[in-house]
């Protein structure tokens, strides 16, 4: 039975193996500028990664040619991409806008987007979490959080 994907090169393991080979080869270049003893372990690991990834790629392609379908990485890619983007956006917002504003927006936004739709529950949860963080970390432990680059501090 043929593989159901359009191209057998788009199988997740094959793509991962190709990615590792490219990245490891890229990292291998700077090792030529190092002393031999300093480069020994990193070069060995990078070459190891390349060789092992070739094995992984071949094994996966063999499975593809045998008609074995690769399991999908996720059943709901939109939710996964959305979750990643929200986490990255939250980190960027903390960096540029400031921690408290970003957190107060992120908690209800993430929970609402991913299925929790009780406005009262969201409000209570946000107040409790932000308040507890302020009381424990800011007030109790004098922890400084990002104030936001946009405010010039």
């Amino acid at each position, binding site marked *: 039975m043929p593989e159901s994907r359009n191209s057998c090169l788009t199988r997740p393991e094959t793509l991962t193996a190709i990615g590792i080979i490219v990245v490891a080869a890229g*990292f291998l270049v700077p090792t030529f500028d*190092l002393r031999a003893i300093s480069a020994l*372990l990193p070069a060995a690991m990078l070459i190891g990664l390349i060789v092992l990834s070739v094995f992984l790629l071949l094994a996966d392609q063999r499975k593809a040619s045998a008609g074995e379908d690769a399991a999908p990485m996720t059943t709901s890619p939109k939710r996964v991409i959305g979750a990643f983007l929200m986490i990255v956006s939250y980190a960027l917002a903390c960096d540029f806008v400031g921690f408290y504003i970003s957190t107060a927006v992120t908690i*209800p936004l993430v929970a609402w987007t991913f299925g929790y739709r009780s406005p009262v529950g969201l409000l209570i949860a946000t107040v409790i979490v932000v308040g507890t963080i302020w009381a424990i970390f800011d007030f109790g432990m004098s922890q400084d959080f*990002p104030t936001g680059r946009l405010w010039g501090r």
Partner: protein
Amino acid sequence: MYSDLLHALPDVFAWTNFVAVVIGVIAGIVVGAMPGLSATMAISVLVPFTFGLEPLVALGLMAGIYNGAMYGGAIPAVLLRIPGTPAAVATTFDGYPMAQKGEGGFALQVAVVSSSIGGIASAFALMLLAPPLSKVTLLFGPSEVFWVAVFGLASIIFLLGGNPIKGLISACFGVFVSVIGSDPIYGNDRFTFGQLEMLDGINIVILLVGLYALPPVIDLLETPLKTGGVNSSKLGTEPIWKALPRMKYWKTWLRGSFLGIWIGILPGAGGSMAAFMSYNEARRTSKNPEKWGEGEPEGVAAAEVANNADTASALIPALTLGIPGTAVAAVMLGGLLVHGLQPGPMLFRDNPDIVFGFMWQFLFGAILLVLLGGSLATNSFARLLNLPRPLLGSVIIVLMLIGVYSIHGRMFDVYLMLGFGAIGWVMDRLKFPLPPVVLGLILGGFAEENLRLALRIGRGDPMVLFQNVTSLILVALTVAVVVGPTLKKRFIDSRKKA
């Protein structure tokens, strides 16, 4: 040898240290009861918050969480047939049928008592076995230490099961991450790309949080679990002292404890394997095996005693040799490193109060399980299953950011953690094992330093690595670990054919 153990006892009773264990056990039960969250993730998220704490307070929290989570996993396993942790899968076999028959409360009491017994046995094993082993390892020189690191990596890669190529890729990645930063001997920058933040190398906590905490959060948001809610008032829980006389499982507890301890010591094996083996053994020796799977309380006892018996014992190779037996032990090694405690031979000599205090905390954590996870608390913990997953996910995201940011007070670490998180998610989905990455990071620098030291002693001659009996034994053990599983598989295949 054991006088240090007694000497450390008073420190454990300092109120801060004791409260830390109590909080840890409660937090552990909560985390374990939440399907999708694990002890590994909880400790990963916790570690950065413990920077400013005294080592025993931090370690007490970790010991408590580890113990609590192993029992907490039984709550959804019994009530919803959803194991809260992977180690609680075997608990569902008889726990859920008991809950369907209206014996959910008793099933949870069997689980908590069995978990406590397993934890106590495991803590005693740690106390008795780790000190003498540490004395032996004090005799190791650079070449032996190098081989110990190689053996540790090999055992995690090849005994973890699954695909050895993926295990090796994980380990190579971990070791590669360990070389980022300044060269420890010549001071050359390696792969820092001009970033000052990377000169000191990659902090293990950043890697731990990225690899272990971010993928479960994505899981929580990807498929919000419909638990259906648990009416804890209908658990039918009676006070634990009334339920205790009905629990006559001494043989099962004893057998499960031994199995759990043994599997905990073996690098690469874990609580799931311990629980399954204990369950199978108990069923095999039962007088009425036909009842198993239909709500036999002894099945719950067998699984729960074993998955708690592997907790402290997994730290025996971790504390003495720096080789963790399980993923949680690998994360705990990271926690020790954060507090300046280098696992390995010197740990017992340089920090006896802390390391032995940690062992006592494991014991108290296991005893506290019965008190904190008893009838009243179990009802409360069962209600936690009704918490909305998306809300939980968003709170964990915030905690991850705070924890990583607070290490050095810079956003660079947060971005780095997100990068490791993305890698961790891909690895998780493609079934690349994560413990070799952590171990690679821990042992990579250790192995490189000792290899270079040994080569210096031997004036560049690599034969210095094979010049004494201990090194040769460690090489033989490494070879055995590498080829053993293949030989075993061939032997089984040939017997099947015959």
